[in-house]
């Protein structure tokens, strides 16, 4: 009898459907739609000094990290409450285990109101706090993000994006937020490292808690603190090459500070410290061994933006990063990334970047590379267009400074 129930329910619904449609009075309210994303095409050359001596050269017409996004939002029946959804595709790195495929990196649905927001789906994992001025978001991934301890595969997509069931509360006139999330990171079979097989992409296997203080750049462009955040992340992962599971907690603290009083020339400092309270898993050769290993990481950047006549013309940044695996000798790494973007027109930039990365002997021996240098130069085109504009935005000046509520999704991928 129990097995018939779904069938009977479906039959009943099928019978009801025409009747309910005839009585349907709800108008079809079109959502606000925005098309977003960024296309990057940057020829690059990379030279690596191998740990055992010798060197390796690699050239690429790199189009990875190019992404296309559709955001939708509309208000609910209740005043000031809204729903939102995003779908996005990104092109993985050339050396990823997902090459030649497109990856759905954003797919979420959420709802919110003046006091908070709920989001369910796949989006950026809450595993980092600051955005460094590199051409690609993942250029300093090893230093800036809490790594995925479930994954034995190359694929930055599965480091940056994951499943989320999250709730965020806003308070302090919208300047503060407290978020809690159940996270799902992609998993591979960690008992068989030689032949990894993806076992799950969306099974919950961790959680995160984040407290943030944030003033949007539109509100806070003169000297002072624009952002400060504290993030706690925990993963429940299988032990590498051994039975059993363990907890891997991590803590991240970050800030953004405006140094300049000048709206035509802004100087901003970003800084972030990260600590993984992991354990010694026996080696650092693979990403899945490094992820749960105890480590400190610092990442910082200084960014300058020239906006003569209040029109963005060029931006230069230098990012610095350092990491140290505490259970191993000389297992540190440093990176220095100066980058440059010259604005050719609204949303269209000529970009260039140099990346220097060096590992201490302990880490170099494990990962095979002693020093890596990379140069890239290319073009980026940021897409943005909004249709049927009808939904507000969180953290608006109207709300922050004039007590006029006009809430909208905090999470609009771009």
């Amino acid at each position, binding site marked *: 009898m129990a097995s018939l129930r779904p069938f009977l329910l479906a039959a009943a619904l099928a019978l009801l459907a025409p009747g309910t449609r005839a009585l349907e009075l709800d108008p079809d309210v079109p959502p606000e739609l925005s098309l977003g994303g960024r296309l990057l095409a940057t020829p690059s050359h990379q030279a690596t000094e191998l740990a055992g001596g010798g060197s390796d050269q690699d050239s690429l017409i790199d189009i990875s990290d190019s992404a296309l996004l559709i955001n939708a939002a509309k208000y609910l029946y209740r*005043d000031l409450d809204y729903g939102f959804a995003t779908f996005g595709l990104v092109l993985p790195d050339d050396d990823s285990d997902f090459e030649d495929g497109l990856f759905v990196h954003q797919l979420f649905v959420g709802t919110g109101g003046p006091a908070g927001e709920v989001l369910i789906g796949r989006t950026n994992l809450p595993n980092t706090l600051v955005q460094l001025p590199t051409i690609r978001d993942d250029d300093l991934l090893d230093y800036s993000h809490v790594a995925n301890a479930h994954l034995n595969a190359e694929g930055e997509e599965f480091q940056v994006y994951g499943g989320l069931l999250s709730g965020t509360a806003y308070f302090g006139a919208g300047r503060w937020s407290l978020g809690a999330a159940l996270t799902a990171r992609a998993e591979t079979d960690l008992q068989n490292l030689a032949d990894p097989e993806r076992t799950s992409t969306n099974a919950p296997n961790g959680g995160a808690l984040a407290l943030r203080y944030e003033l949007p750049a*539109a*509100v806070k*462009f*003169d000297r002072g603190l624009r952002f400060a955040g504290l993030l706690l992340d925990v993963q429940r992962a299988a032990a590498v090459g051994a039975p059993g599971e363990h907890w891997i907690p991590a803590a991240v603290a970050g800030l953004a500070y405006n140094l300049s*009083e*000048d*709206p*035509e020339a802004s100087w901003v400092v970003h800084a972030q410290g990260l600590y993984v309270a992991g354990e010694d898993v026996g080696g650092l050769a693979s990403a899945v061994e490094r992820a749960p290993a105890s480590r400190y990481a610092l990442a910082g950047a200084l960014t300058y933006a020239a906006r003569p*006549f*209040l029109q963005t013309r060029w931006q230069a940044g230098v990012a610095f990063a350092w990491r140290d695996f505490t259970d191993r000798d000389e297992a540190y790494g440093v990176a220095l990334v100066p980058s440059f973007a010259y604005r050719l*027109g*609204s949303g269209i930039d000529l970009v260039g970047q140099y990346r220097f990365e060096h590992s201490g002997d302990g880490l170099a021996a494990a990962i095979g590379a002693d020093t890596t240098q990379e140069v890239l130069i290319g073009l980026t085109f940021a897409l943005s267009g909004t249709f049927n*504009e*009808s939904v*507000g*935005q969180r953290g*608006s*000046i*109207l709300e922050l*400074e*004039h007590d*006029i509520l*006009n809430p909208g999704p905090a999470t609009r991928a771009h």
Partner: protein
Amino acid sequence: MSYREFRLDFVLTEHELLPGVRFPCFAFNGQVPGPMFRVQENDWIKVVARNRTPEMHTIHWHGVDVIYTMDGVPMVTQDPIHPEETFVYRFQARPHGTRLYHCHWGTPLHMMSALHGAFIIDTPDDPVRAMFPYQRDYVLVLEAFDVNFTRRHMEELLGGMKRVNKLMALRRLSPLTHAFFPNYQAFLQAIEAGWRPPYTRGNAEVTDIKPTFFAINGKSYPATVTTEHLYIRRGENIRVRLINGGVFDHHMHLHGHQFWKVAEDGNPLPQPLRLNTVPVTPGKTVDLIVHGNNPGFWDFHDHKELNTRNNGIYPGGMITMLEYEDLENPPYVPSISVNQ
């Protein structure tokens, strides 16, 4: 010389057009429309205008023959009134008639805001009153709002003005930042030096304004019931002064009556016109005399019916009513509908 003194503050406020619809806008003293002036012809007027918004404004006395430095056209007759600045307008109120005032910082955001109001100049020798004796008159300011546009552009403006005002405080605002030039030659020189004007392709965001709410004195039907109804008694003449404070055309139609159009742009017509529908285009004022000769409840609305909707839903917007106060037992009494 003694002045009649008034205060007008430019304020950023949130205005309720009707229950459930609020939007941010600039408004004089926080009122939509701004406070009504009622002065006598040749009165000397002093208006202390204080800018309490982050945007720049002026006040133009539309249809009033002021001296030119009081005309309120930015960069033509005065510098704009900067945030937290005060400007004092002094002028003589003339000629008599239904006139208006509005901010002349004419950006689309201002057009979709509410910086406008009635400026009524009376005279003891009013030819209209002589021809059609009346006791009561009504002033209806006609308005159209694209509230989505206003919300979004208000936000953008507030962000932009933070930077502009900062540069101004640092005394570093250059003509190129704000596209202000001392003369046409300087403008041409800037272009020759490589500066591209903001309206050129690649630089301009093309804005589209589609008004979704229409109002009389700041209220959309059915909220017009509360204050915007016209009351009349049998045998009475009432004067109705229509003012278009917005940028769209309105064609006001009165049911059950042929009214007299007695003045246009505030000036009495040599010969009144007998009409039942009258266009009121942007910046125009039209004065009507209605004679109470057909008791009942009568629709008075924009006959461009697209403007009698709230966010696309009929009925709404620019609808009000002529109501006889001396009806004893009306066979039918109006009710309220907001979705037909």
